């Protein structure tokens, strides 16, 4: 059962049977730019990048992005940079895996962001979405579409944070501008 999330909505990352989640995947997908006529090679490719910033008490501790694919502690892994996008049919083009059980004890929030590395605004990107999947069984827990993103090149998607003994996810959907996650830090801080 998928929850189509709206901005600001929080969902608890509990399994339907009451057990807590152990591993989640943040998937990002978008449709590659259409090929331009005869000169397909001149297509301006769209390169979106997913990043995850690990916070301990509002201090950034580690970042997982295309240049640092695994957090030092090994709990958060990026599966690799996709530079062009996919078919736009709902498959993940980039994914970040989070092993919630291995997240170090002082990390209390993980913020997921999406940036347009090639500079297109989300208005120009088709069928972009981000979703959270229970990695143990492939079930989609939440989906958030990026369409109609307007004149923005980045979005602070969602955060996963500790709540009680488990984890909770909050959809943020906050538009911002920036090429990589560094540009977004000022925009992230109010959401912590």
């Amino acid at each position, binding site marked *: 059962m998928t929850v189509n999330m709206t901005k600001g909505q929080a969902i608890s990352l509990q399994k339907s049977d009451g057990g807590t989640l152990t591993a989640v995947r943040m998937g990002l997908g978008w449709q590659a730019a259409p090929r331009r006529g005869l000169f397909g090679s001149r297509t301006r490719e769209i390169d979106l990048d997913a990043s995850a910033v690990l916070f*301990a008490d509002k201090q950034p501790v580690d970042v997982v992005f295309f240049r640092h694919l695994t957090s030092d502690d090994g709990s958060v892994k990026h599966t690799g940079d996709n530079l062009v996008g996919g078919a736009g049919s709902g498959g993940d083009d980039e994914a970040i895996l989070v092993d919630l059980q291995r997240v170090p004890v002082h990390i209390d929030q993980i913020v997921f962001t999406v940036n347009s590395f090639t500079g297109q605004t989300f208005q120009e990107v088709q069928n972009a979405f981000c979703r959270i999947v229970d990695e143990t069984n492939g079930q989609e827990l939440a989906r958030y579409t990026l369409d109609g993103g307007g004149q923005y090149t980045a979005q602070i998607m969602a955060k996963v944070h500790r709540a009680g003994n488990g984890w909770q996810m909050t959809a943020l959907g906050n538009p911002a501008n920036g090429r990589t996650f560094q540009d977004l830090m000022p925009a992230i801080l109010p959401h912590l």
Partner: protein
Amino acid sequence: MTAELVRGQNHTLPRTRLEIRVSAGSPVVAGATLGDEHGTVRGAEWIAHPGSPQLPGLEVSRQAAADHRLAVDLDALPETVHRVTVLLALPTGAGRPDRFGAVAAPFVAVTGLDGTEIATFTLTGLDTESAVAALELYRRQGAWKVRAVGQGYATGLAGMLADQGIDRAAECAAAIHEAVAAGSARSVTPPPPRTPDGERVRHPAGPSAPPAGGGQPAAPAPGALGDSGAAAGSTASGAAGPGATPQGSPTPGSTAGGPIDYAHPRRQTSAPPPPPPTVPPAAPGEPARPVAGDATGWSMDERLYNQIWGMFEDLARAVAAYRSAVDFADSRMEQEIDRALGDPRNRMGGAGDRAREEARAKREELAARAREALDRDLAQLAAESAVVEPALPAAYAGWDNPVWHGYRVPMEIPMALRVGDLHLPERTDLRIPLLVRLPLERGIWIDSGRTASEAAAAADGDALRRSAVETAVALAARLLAVYPAHEFSVHVIDPAGSAAGPLAPLTASGVLAAPPASGAGGVAAVLAQLTRRVDLVQMAVRAGAADSLPPDLDVGEHLLIVNDFPHGFDDRAVTQLRYLADEGPSVGVHLMMVADREDARAYGPVLDPLWRSLLRVTPVADDHLADPWVGHAWTYEPSRAPEGSRVLEQVLALVAAARRTDRR
């Protein structure tokens, strides 16, 4: 502003650090050749290709892929290079397109490091060609320019390389294709080398993307494992490169022009590997019970090797998580105490003390939880280590492992060799074997100097020197033992004869090629012999005439142990030694220095490259090795025979006996 070039057009490059992006509809091999002022490619070592992806100032992908990003730093190229030709070729193999006419026109873009395009070029009009020189970067009056070339070759890579003046172009091309095939079949993933963030190069996603192997122009710190880790996984490509080592019987000439043999050089069949050991189902709520060989691989050796690297990484990361949490707890406590003390209201009464106590308690609570998580991970790794250690083959096992008592001279070279143990202060009894791939890719330096470590400071100089020679003997014995009988020889240079005692296990068992060389004459003779060997094999490999080597030249590998450097060395001998260190490993001549860097101080910085090229180990525990993932300082301890054990002598006796009985 992007210049869209047409064939033959050129464009001035505004900067020297560039990326060259290649997009093609199907996988292509991307490479580059370097040319001198006449445009001549001087040799195979001037070609960057998947089997040899890094040259100074230039890096190409290790695999065939539809998208490539080549990193180029024109300032870092040697002065003699005046031209860089970017080439594309279709990988060979059944079912793959064999001409560019059958695939989408490749597109090449020269971009800055930030991704801004400087010039682009679409290679249209190709038909039966299977290789194409796409772009040329060239020096013109001190500046660099790019020219769109688009010259295709129906004769493929071999034809293109021949056109650029390379001798034995067919062989070079075959080696490149072989490296591509090996790259796509490689099942051992090298642990990614840690690179400074600013220097990392973006890699496209997908299973074929090498893990962060990106630009590493900065030399790693001496002894950094990152380097050996990277080298560890690249044996397959290294062995297929044009400067390949002749192992066993050198046959580089046999592939010239002929069909390419995709078989793994050391794997006899492509039958599926035996199934991995089954892991018993875990009891609910408990971690799975560890099993030796619980990793991927084609053989048990390979599985254990991968499992050990997996344990190494897990330990590095578990400790990173713990240290990060404790650092955070400490800094939070300090901030809270500062804040409490900075508040004037807290100066009176006990409020300040209470705030301090609270901050301290919060720190303790977090640190305790971090420790709990760490202990959980360490317990699991310790349990894994307890089942893995007894299951290790001799080459991976410590001298205290009973497997050495059932030692037999092997028929083939193992994948890797244990050169010692690594541990972290969080749990000193959890030892990770430090495995290096065989054949050795760089020499070893056993530092007999007084290092910063406590153990070294405690030992007196003579004991340390003796211990260093013993470490060298133990390592040399291991190498002798894990190679088949006639494929490894050890030479010793001991100019003053000062190490006769600790060298006894080698000299007494008769496994040495000749008695330790002493005096300036002895040094010169051994160096001359090995230098000649390197020269001959190198020439033969380059010329593809391995069968014309003189009959008295054995084809096995050689290890040269040098004690007391630079005692007994004159300038000429030092030069020869540096030559061996640089050129030896690729033709099977390895160096093991037992030396104190201080002794060679008189030579000044000219020897720095020599020390840096060697893997530095110590005769006593010393925390100088960095892991490739997080960069912790790991404490290295050499693998030594247990006190009073004769295992080393027994093993060497068996090695010597095997050499005597089947001496041909």
